[in-house]
């Protein structure tokens, strides 16, 4: 069957191989940091791949990583929900706003690639040392808040506030460079 992505000759299966398989490691890293548990992370990525496969015919081939991370986030919500079935409430359907929108809708606002990485690196380099150090420990080396706090000899709350402020600055830099939309900037 033909798909909507950029390569008109591509089958869904080939598109999946081209766009999804190369991102497996990236997805697993992000899933590990979201779940803090190896088995959960692996399940989450598997869920994400299934959803991506089901949606691949509607994917236009632009910014596969951004597309997949949105799917990962949606899959994560549904996994939380499944763990707490009493909280199903009205959100039963589980198809989220972003997942049902046409792909280029969100891709327009979130560009990814070398430029994105470059702006992130640049923003990181410009951070004050005490902020950058926390980002290095948590995001680059994978320490927990507590681990970073012990390593730096500061309270966990300090790690959190420095880390969050640092990432907010990185995001501000991405917004300033026009790579992502301002959204709910604060």
């Amino acid at each position, binding site marked *: 069957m033909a798909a909507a992505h950029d390569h008109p000759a591509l089958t869904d299966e080939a598109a999946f191989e081209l766009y999804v398989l190369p991102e497996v490691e990236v997805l697993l*890293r992000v899933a590990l940091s979201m779940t803090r548990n190896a088995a959960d992370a692996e399940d989450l990525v598997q869920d994400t791949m299934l959803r991506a496969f089901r949606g691949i015919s509607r994917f236009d081939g632009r910014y596969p990583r951004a597309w997949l991370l949105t799917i990962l986030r949606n899959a994560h*919500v549904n996994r939380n*929900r499944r763990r707490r079935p009493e909280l199903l409430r009205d959100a039963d359907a589980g198809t989220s706003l972003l997942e049902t929108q046409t792909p280029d809708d969100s891709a327009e606002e979130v560009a*990814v690639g070398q430029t994105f990485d470059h702006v992130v690196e640049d923003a990181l380099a410009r951070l004050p040392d005490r902020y950058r150090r926390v980002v290095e420990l948590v995001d680059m080396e994978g320490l927990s808040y507590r681990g970073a706090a012990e390593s730096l000899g500061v309270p966990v709350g300090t790690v959190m506030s420095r880390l969050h402020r640092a990432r907010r600055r990185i995001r501000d830099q991405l917004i300033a460079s026009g790579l992502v939309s301002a959204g709910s900037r604060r």
Partner: protein
Amino acid sequence: MRALRYLRRRRRPHTDSAVLACEAVVELVQLYLDGATDDLTSEEVGHHLDMCRRCGLQADVYLQIKATLAANRPVPDDAVERLRRFGEQLAVHGLPGSP
């Protein structure tokens, strides 16, 4: 955590008590993406991100920043191997249980 309790009280008035306001979600979204919120808060933040396009996009930007920063972090080889095999199966045979 005192901050979390404080934010919990700042729910949007006159709506479903489970609906967190955007301003609370903006404060919580990074904790959520770091797996540092409790189950109930995770549920509420996740639900909000599902329903609110602005906060959802913001969360996605943070995930992309995470992905970029974590690029050189080692991942368990065996898990990557299993996931690759799972993906290759999908690409060759399609969804499990479908013809």
